[in-house]
C-alpha cells in the first residue's frame, strides 16, 4: 500500500469541502486559547494563516527572515489574483476555474484540492476588499478584471502592477492587529534551520537569530511551514534574494516527503542576463505578449542593430509555428522555443542569449500613447535596467526560473507526512500540477491561509493526542540545536578558497544546463554526478569568513546554499524518473513529431513523493495515483 493517503473526503466533488467542514471535529473557542502554533513565513500564505488562526483564538508564533513580515517575497507579485466571481458576465464559474487550473497543470494535480481552491477563491476577494486592498475599479465603482495567462475569461483582479504588494500588506495589517492584541508573537530576522519532531509529531523549530547569531528553540502544538519556493536553486531567478529551500528541505530530512521536485516554471519574459555579476533576474509582465511580437534574425550570428534588419530577414517564430495562438502560447511553450532559437545561434544582444519582443507594430497601430498607457511602468522599469527604450528599439527578453510547482507533499488537510507539520503556499506541491497558470499562486497562498488551514488545524488538534507537558527542555531540542551548531561550525571551519556565492553560481549553471528548460536522461545523469561533486567541493573548499556571533551574511548564505546543493540533486533525480513530458517538465525523449510535450498518462498520472533515507543515500520514490473522476484528460494544442 502507498504510504500516501490523500485523505480526500468522499462525496460529490462540489460538496466535498462543505461536507468535510461539517464533519470535522471542532475545538470550542475557550479551548483554542490552549493551543500554540508556529508559523514559519510571512508571505501571503504564512501571514494569512497567522492572522486568521490568531483571530480564532490560537496562540501564534510567527517567524520570518526579513526585518518585517511585510517584506516577504510575495510582495513582488505583479500581475494579479484569480477568482471566479464572473463579474464581467463572460461565462466564468467555479467549475471553469477548476477546470482551467487542472488542465493548465497538465493533469498532474489532485481534483479535490483544486476544486476547493476554485471554491474559496471568491471569498479571498471579499476578504481583501474588506481589509482595504485598493483593487482596480471601473468608473462605476465596481471591481475591474482583466484576462491573464491564457484564460479565455477575465477573472484576474489586480492593484496596478502591484497586486502582491497590496494583498500582502492587507494580510500583514491583519497580522499586526493580532500582534497588538497579543495573539501573535512576532520573531523577525530569524531563519529556521531545523524541525523538531517528538513522538512522531512536529512540535517545534530551531532558528538562527540573524542579528545575534544565537540559536533559539521554539515549541508549539503544531508547525506550519509557509516558506515559499526553491527557485533560487538555479542561482539566477525572479525570486527575492533570501528566498530559499531550507525550511522545506530540513523538514524533508525529518521525514516529510518531497513531491514533484522537478516541476519548475520558467517564465518566458524576463530581462536577460547582462554579465557575471548579475544577482537576480527581473520579470517583465506576461501581459506584454498581448502587443509585443517575438522574433529573431533569420541569419545566425547576425550582429546588426534590430532596426537595421529588414522584415524579410526576421523570423517571427511563434507566429510561424503556432499560427492560432502566436505570441500568446503558454509560458512553457514560449520559453522552450526561445531556447531553441538561441541554441541555433540566432540569439540577439551582446551575449546572444536573448530574443526580441518588438512593439513597433503595436505602436504603429495604436499610437505611442496607447502603448504607454498599457505598459508605461514596465517600459520604464526596462529602461532603468537596460538603458534602452522599448519605444524605439525592441526589448530583449529571455526565459528565467520563476516558480516551483513541486514542494512538500500534503494531504487534503495540507498536512505533510509528518503529523502536525502543515505546509502552505508555494512551499507545498499541491494545486498547480506540472505548470502553474498566471495569477494562481496568490490565490492558492491566500486560500491555504485564510480559508483552509484555520479549519483543518482545529480538526488536527481535536483528533490527535498532543502531549502538552512537553517544553523546549525536551532532549529533542538539545539534539536539534547541537545538529545546527555542528553544521555551522563545519561551515565556518572549512576555511577553503571559494566564496559561497561563487559555488552557488556554479550550481546555478549546472541546474540550468542539466535540469533546465529541456532535460534528457543522459544529461540528467551527468548533472547528478556534477552536483554531487560540487557538493563535495563545497564541503572541502568553501570559505565562510567571520564567526557565528552577530550578523554574518556569508554564513546565512552558506546555510541556504548547502541545502540548495542537496535539493538540486533531488530535482534532477525526480526529472530523471519522470519518463514523460508534462507542463514545465520537458524531456527531449518524450515529444511528438511536432516537438510538443508528450505526456504518458498510463504510467505517470501520479505524484512522485520522495522519502529521505539518509545523507548520500538514494531517496525512495513513493507514488500517489491521481484519479480523475470529473475531467477528461486531453492533449494541449496551441497550433
Amino acid at each position: 500500500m502507498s504510504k500516501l493517503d490523500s485523505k480526500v473526503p468522499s462525496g460529490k466533488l462540489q460538496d466535498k469541502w462543505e461536507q468535510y467542514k461539517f464533519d470535522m471535529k471542532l475545538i470550542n473557542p475557550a479551548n483554542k486559547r490552549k493551543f500554540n502554533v508556529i508559523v514559519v513565513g510571512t508571505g501571503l500564505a504564512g501571514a494569512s494563516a497567522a492572522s486568521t488562526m490568531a483571530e480564532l483564538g490560537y496562540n501564534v508564533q510567527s517567524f520570518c527572515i526579513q526585518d518585517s513580515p511585510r517584506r516577504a517575497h510575495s510582495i513582488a507579485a505583479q500581475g494579479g489574483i484569480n477568482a471566479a466571481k464572473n463579474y464581467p458576465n463572460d461565462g466564468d464559474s467555479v467549475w471553469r476555474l477548476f477546470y482551467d487550473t487542472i488542465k493548465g497543470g497538465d493533469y498532474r494535480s489532485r481534483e479535490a484540492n483544486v476544486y476547493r481552491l476554485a471554491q474559496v477563491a471568491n471569498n479571498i476577494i471579499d476578504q481583501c476588499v474588506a481589509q482595504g486592498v485598493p483593487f482596480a475599479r471601473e468608473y462605476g465603482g465596481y471591481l475591474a478584471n482583466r484576462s491573464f495567462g491564457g484564460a479565455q475569461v477575465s477573472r484576474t483582479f489586480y492593484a496596478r502592477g502591484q497586486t502582491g504588494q497590496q494583498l500582502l500588506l492587507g494580510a500583514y495589517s491583519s497580522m499586526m492587529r493580532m500582534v497588538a492584541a497579543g495573539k501573535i508573537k512576532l520573531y523577525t530576522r530569524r531563519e529556521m534551520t531545523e524541525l523538531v519532531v517528538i513522538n512522531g509529531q512536529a512540535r517545534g523549530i530551531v532558528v538562527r537569530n540573524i542579528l545575534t547569531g544565537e540559536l533559539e528553540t521554539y515549541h508549539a502544538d503544531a508547525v506550519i511551514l509557509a516558506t515559499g519556493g526553491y527557485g533560487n536553486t538555479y542561482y539566477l531567478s525572479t525570486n527575492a534574494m533570501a528566498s530559499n529551500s531550507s525550511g522545506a528541505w530540513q523538514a524533508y530530512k525529518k521525514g516529510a516527503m518531497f513531491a514533484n521536485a522537478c516541476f519548475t516554471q520558467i517564465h518566458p519574459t524576463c530581462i536577460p542576463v547582462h554579465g557575471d555579476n548579475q544577482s537576480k533576474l527581473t520579470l517583465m509582465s506576461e501581459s506584454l505578449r498581448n502587443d509585443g511580437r517575438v522574433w529573431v534574425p533569420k541569419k545566425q550570428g547576425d550582429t546588426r542593430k534590430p532596426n537595421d534588419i529588414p522584415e524579410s530577414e526576421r523570423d517571427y517564430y511563434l507566429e510561424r509555428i503556432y499560427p492560432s495562438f502566436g505570441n500568446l502560447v503558454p509560458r512553457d511553450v514560449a520559453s522552450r522555443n526561445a531556447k531553441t532559437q538561441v541554441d541555433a545561434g540566432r540569439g540577439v544582444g551582446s551575449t546572444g542569449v536573448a530574443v526580441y519582443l518588438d512593439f513597433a507594430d503595436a505602436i504603429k497601430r495604436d499610437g505611442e500613447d496607447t502603448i504607454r498607457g498599457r505598459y508605461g511602468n514596465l517600459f520604464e522599469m526596462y529602461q532603468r535596467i537596460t538603458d534602452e527604450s522599448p519605444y524605439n528599439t525592441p526589448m530583449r527578453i529571455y526565459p528565467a526560473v520563476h516558480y516551483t510547482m513541486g514542494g512538500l507533499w500534503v494531504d487534503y488537510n495540507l498536512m505533510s507526512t509528518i503529523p502536525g507539520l502543515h505546509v502552505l503556499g508555494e512551499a507545498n506541491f499541491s494545486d498547480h500540477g506540472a505548470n502553474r497558470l498566471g495569477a494562481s499562486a496568490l490565490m492558492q497562498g491566500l486560500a491555504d491561509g485564510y480559508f483552509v488551514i484555520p479549519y483543518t488545524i482545529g480538526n488536527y488538534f481535536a483528533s490527535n493526542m498532543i502531549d502538552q507537558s512537553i517544553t523546549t527542555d525536551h532532549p529533542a531540542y538539545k539534539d536539534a540545536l547541537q545538529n545546527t551548531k555542528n553544521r555551522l561550525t563545519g561551515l565556518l571551519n572549512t576555511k577553503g578558497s571559494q566564496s559561497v556565492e561563487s559555488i552557488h553560481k556554479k550550481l546555478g549553471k549546472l541546474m540550468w544546463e542539466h535540469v533546465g528548460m529541456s532535460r534528457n536522461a543522459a544529461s540528467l545523469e551527468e548533472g547528478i554526478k556534477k552536483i554531487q561533486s560540487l557538493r563535495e567541493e563545497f564541503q572541502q573548499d568553501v570559505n565562510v569568513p567571520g564567526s557565528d556571533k552577530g550578523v554574518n551574511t556569508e554564513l546565512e548564505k552558506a546555510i541556504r546554499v548547502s541545502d540548495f546543493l542537496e535539493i538540486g540533486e533531488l530535482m534532477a533525480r525526480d526529472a530523471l524518473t519522470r519518463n514523460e513530458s508534462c507542463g514545465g517538465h520537458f524531456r527531449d525523449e518524450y515529444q511528438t513529431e511536432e516537438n510538443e510535450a508528450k505526456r504518458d498518462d498510463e504510467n505517470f498520472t501520479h505524484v512522485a513523493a520522495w522519502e529521505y533515507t539518509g545523507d548520500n543515500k538514494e531517496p525512495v520514490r513513493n507514488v500517489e495515483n491521481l484519479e480523475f473522476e470529473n475531467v477528461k484528460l486531453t492533449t494541449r494544442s496551441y497550433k
Partner: protein
Amino acid sequence: MSTATMTLKLKIWRQADNTSKGSMKEYDLPGVSPDMSFLEMLDLLNENLVNSGNDPVAFDHDCREGICGMCSLMINGEAHGPQKLTTTCQLHMRSFKDGDTVVIEPFRAKAFPVHKDLMVDRSAFDEIIAAGGFISMNAGNAPDGNAIPIGKETADLAMDAAACIGCGACVASCENASAMLFTSAKLSQLALLPQGKAEAAERAQKMVKKMDELGFGNCTNAAECEASCPKGIELSNIARMNREFFKSSLSK
C-alpha cells in the same frame, strides 16, 4: 550596453554592532560595469572582501525590484541615491562616472538604530502599523467585494497612498526624522476607503501617538521626505492626516 568598466572610490560606514562606534572606511573598487545595479556593485566589493579574508559590508536587501522596501542607504547624502523615484536596488551604476567618490551611509534616525554597517532597525514602522494601521475585521466576515462600490478616483487615490514600501527614506532624509509621510500614507489609504471610515478617527489618534512615542520628530514642512520617496508618496497625505487627526481630537 557598455563594456568599459569604472573604478570607484567608496567611502562606507562600518560599524561592528549596535553598541560599537562606527567610522567611515575607504575602498577602491575597479571593474564596475555601468550595467550593474548599485547593490551588485556592493556584491562585487563584498566578493573581493571575502576573498581577501575581510568582513563583507552588511546591508539590507531582498527583492532587488524596488518593491519590498528592504534596501536603504544614503548615497552621497541622498536617500536611495541620485535618481528620483528609484530605490537603491534599482539604481544602476551608469549614474556614476569612472573615478567618482561614492559615500555610502546607513539611514540615520533616533528610531532607526544601526544593527551593523548599513543595516538598521526599522521595526518602529511595524509598531506604528500595529497601533492602528488596519481595518478591524476577521476573516470570514466580509460581504461581497462589490457590495460597496468605490469610485475609481477614490480607489486610485487610495492606491497612490498604499504604494508606500515602508523603506524609511522619508525619515532618513528629514532633518527632524519625522515619520509623517509613512504614517499619513497608511492613514490616507484607509480613511479614503469606505471600509476604513468607521475607525478613521481612532486610528489617526493611535498611530500618531505611537509615532511620537517611538521618537520620530515633528513635521516642519521641509518636504525632503516627498523628494526622497522612491514611490512618489505625496505631501497631500500629511494634510489629509492632519485633517483626520484634528477632526478626531475635536470629537474627543
